[in-house]
Structures are given as structure tokens and as C-alpha cells.
């Protein structure tokens, strides 16, 4: 068995303090790009703004998760207000949810732009609106986060009942409902199969199967892959928010998120794979770099599955 670096020594608080800037500052950058693109009527820049939005939505996942890990590590320390952290965490969870919606709509915009040659106005406006809302919520979360170490700056109420926070309510359902966890697991398995099938078809085409088929004709399958990915993001977040302590110190979980980030970047690349999607006559053939990317894609998805399934065995979860 390969030696997996211990992550109990890994300082999540530092990583969180680094990653937590991505959703806020990233949103400002993306909103700026949208504004410039609209003023200049630059369709290429609109696509860049949508790509940046998707990338921020991806990075919001480790930003949220390292925050939860930092909370679990810090809560026993003196001088830390439990309520301040929980308030920050709850607002961040809302911000994360808005951010994922923005990322999803941005992805639909990118996908549609490939089909119709340009981004639909409705999708563009929706992306910008969702991004603006998520920025506002994330900025509030950032503000509340600052109060954790500097209570003198803010007006956070000293104590609130822990059970009234959203994260606690989700956790309560995850732990106490007899069917919620098994149902979420089942959906997680259905979602992974759906994503796998679509990625298998597209990657095999890059690697040489279905050679006569124009790449563009496979495009209609991508949203099914995204559907599987979305189902697994929702159910996966339910597991994580439901029982965070099962995951934060687990090395297979850490690697699973690393592989998921690579897989997500790969999915974005596949979505905007211009030279391939432009092929409507079956004339495109993959270069060595394209084939390497297809191999990496299959590898990271299998690796993410491996790490997830191995949570109880390599790690200590459940």
C-alpha cells in the first residue's frame, strides 16, 4: 500500500485563511470581467467570465471544507466564541450554495455557447445575479469570520443555541433520520454511474473509439455528466455537513477532494474544448496532449471513487 502522508499534522486553519479569499475576491474579479465584457460587447470575454465563475464555484468546496476542519480543531481553544464560528459557518454554507448555483448556471452558459455560438442573454444575466448574491453572502461570511479572532470589532451575540443553526439541523437529519443517509448514498452511486458513463464516452472518443463520429455530436451528452456531478455534489455535501468529523481528519477524503478539483478542472476544459467541439465533420483527431488529458480524466475520477469507497478502510471513517 502506498504511504499516504498523514494529514493530522496538516494545518487546515492556515489553508482556510488562504482559500477563503477565493469566493470573495474571485467573485469581484468575475463580476468585473462580466461588466467589461458587457461594455465592450466582447463575447470572448463573457466566456472567460463564465469560466472564472465555474472555477470559483469549484474552489469554494475546499474553502468551505477547510473552514469546517478549522472549526473542529479550534473549538476547544480558550477565547474562541463557539457562536461566532457557527454563525460564520452557517452564512458561509448559504454563500457556498449560492456560489454553486452561480457556477452551475455559468456552466450551462458555457455549454450553450458552444451549441449556439454565443452566450444566451438570460443565462448571462442569471449568472451575474447569482454571483452578485453569493458575493454579498460570502462578504458577510468573511466579516463574521473576522469576528472569530477579533470579537472586539464585531457585534456578534455572545451565545446562541447551537441547534438553531442550519449546519446543526442538517447534521440532525443525517444522524437521526433512518432513511436520509441510505437514500443519499443511493443517489450518490446513481450519480457517479451517470458521470462515469458520459466521461467514458467522451474520453474514449478522444482516445480513438468512434473515430468517424464528429466530436460535436457528443456534446448533447455533457449535461447528463453534469447532472451526475451535481447530484453527487449535493449528496456529498449532505454527508460532509451531516458528519464532518468523519471526514476532516481522513487522508482518503483529503485526496478525494484533491482528485475532485483536478476532475472538475478537466470537466471545465472538456466543456470549452474549442478545437474538438468545433469539429462537425469527424475530421478532428486527438494530439498526444489530448490523449494524456483523457487518461488523466479517467484516472482522477477512478481515484476519487477509490478514495471515497476506501474512507472506512484507509481512513478511520465509520
Amino acid at each position, binding site marked *: *500500500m502506498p504511504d499516504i502522508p498523514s494529514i493530522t499534522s496538516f494545518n487546515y486553519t492556515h489553508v482556510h485563511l488562504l482559500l477563503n479569499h477565493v469566493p470573495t475576491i474571485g467573485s469581484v474579479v468575475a463580476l468585473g470581467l462580466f461588466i467589461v465584457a458587457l461594455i465592450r460587447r466582447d463575447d470572448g470575454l463573457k466566456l472567460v467570465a463564465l469560466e472564472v465563475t465555474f472555477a470559483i464555484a469549484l474552489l469554494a468546496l475546499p474553502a468551505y471544507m477547510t473552514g469546517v476542519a478549522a472549526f473542529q480543531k479550534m473549538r476547544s481553544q480558550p477565547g474562541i466564541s463557539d457562536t461566532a464560528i457557527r454563525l460564520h459557518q452557517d452564512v458561509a454554507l448559504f454563500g457556498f450554495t449560492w456560489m454553486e448555483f452561480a457556477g452551475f448556471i455559468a456552466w450551462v452558459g458555457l455549454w450553450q455557447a458552444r451549441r449556439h455560438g454565443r452566450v444566451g442573454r438570460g443565462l448571462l444575466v442569471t449568472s451575474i445575479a447569482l454571483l452578485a448574491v453569493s458575493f454579498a453572502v460570502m462578504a458577510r461570511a468573511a466579516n463574521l469570520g473576522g469576528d472569530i479572532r477579533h470579537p472586539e470589532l464585531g457585534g456578534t451575540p455572545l451565545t446562541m443555541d447551537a441547534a438553531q443553526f442550519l449546519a446543526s439541523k442538517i447534521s440532525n437529519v443525517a444522524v437521526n433520520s433512518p432513511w436520509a443517509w441510505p437514500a443519499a448514498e443511493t443517489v450518490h452511486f*446513481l450519480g457517479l*454511474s451517470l458521470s*462515469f458513463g458520459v466521461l467514458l464516452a467522451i474520453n*474514449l472518443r478522444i482516445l480513438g473509439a468512434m473515430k468517424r463520429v*464528429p466530436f460535436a*455530436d457528443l456534446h448533447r451528452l455533457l449535461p*447528463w455528466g453534469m447532472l451526475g456531478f451535481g447530484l453527487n455534489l449535493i449528496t456529498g455535501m449532505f454527508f460532509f455537513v451531516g458528519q464532518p468529523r468523519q471526514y476532516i481528519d481522513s487522508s482518503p477524503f483529503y485526496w478525494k477532494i484533491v482528485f475532485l478539483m483536478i476532475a472538475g478542472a478537466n470537466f471545465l476544459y472538456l466543456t470549452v474544448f474549442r478545437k474538438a467541439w468545433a469539429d462537425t465533420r469527424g475530421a478532428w483527431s486527438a494530439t498526444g496532449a489530448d490523449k494524456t488529458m483523457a487518461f488523466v480524466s479517467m484516472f482522477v475520477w477512478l481515484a476519487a471513487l477509490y478514495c471515497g469507497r476506501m474512507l472506512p478502510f484507509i481512513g478511520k471513517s465509520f
Partner: protein
Amino acid sequence: MGFLTWLESLPLSVWVHESPSIWAQPTVMTMHTMGMGVLVGASWVLDLRLLGFSRKIPLSAFRWVFPAVAISLLVNLVTGILLFMARATLWGTAFPFLIKILLVVASAATLMPIRTYVLQSGPEQLEVSSSAQRWAIASIAAWAAAITAGRLLAYTVAG
């Protein structure tokens, strides 16, 4: 009962069930899940094509699905037998397990008429008969039911 007890007492069964090695139960189980992803995913992609998504792609271009399905079915047969052997007396007498196996067999059975249809389709054939579409719907539903029944075994039987 005698057979199941014997099966469970084989050295291989005992190894899968009791060895602390990562290569025993954990790896066998993970390979079973990977096989599931490829098997069901490849089947679903073809089913979606039959139902009209990516309708510009000729059916004959989807022949790669069948080797992918055959390999993953083989992986899951082998890993499935190993997992069964490891706790033969438990699985062999559990009604939910019987349902899961029946659903897997039914799902795999839907692949047969679909396979025949796709392999016999013309090189540029795009249109799909309504009976093939009905098989595609049956295939999607049957695999979803099989996965559901399989995942819930962890709660209904082995909980």
C-alpha cells in the same frame, strides 16, 4: 445450508472476510463499485442515445459499449462472487440480496435485445425503433433499481 457453510469456510472466503489487508474486502468492494460505475454508466449512455440524445451519432458508433459492459460485468461477477463467498451464509439466506441479484440479472437481460439491435443497425443508421426505445427505458430503470437494492443491502442485511 451445508454448502453455504462450506463455501464460507474456504481459505479464500476467510481471507476476503477476515484479512486486515487492504487488498482483501476493501479492494474487492471498491473494484465492485468501479465495475458498477463503468457497467451502468456505459449502459446508460447507450440508453440515452436510443432515447434521442446525441441523435446525430449513428448507432453503430456505440459498439464500444458492449466490450466495456462485458469487461465490467466480468469484474463484477468475480468480485461479487468473492464478496458472496466471504459471507455466504448471510447473503445466501437474505431476501433483499435475492432481489438485488434478480434486478442485476434483469438489467443485464435488457442489454441483450439492445445489443442485437445496435449490432444489426446499418452503418449510418440514426433512427431508433420504438421497441428499442422501450428496452432503453427498461434498462435505465432496471439498473437504477439494481443499484438502489445493492446499496441498501448495507442497511437491510449487513447493517
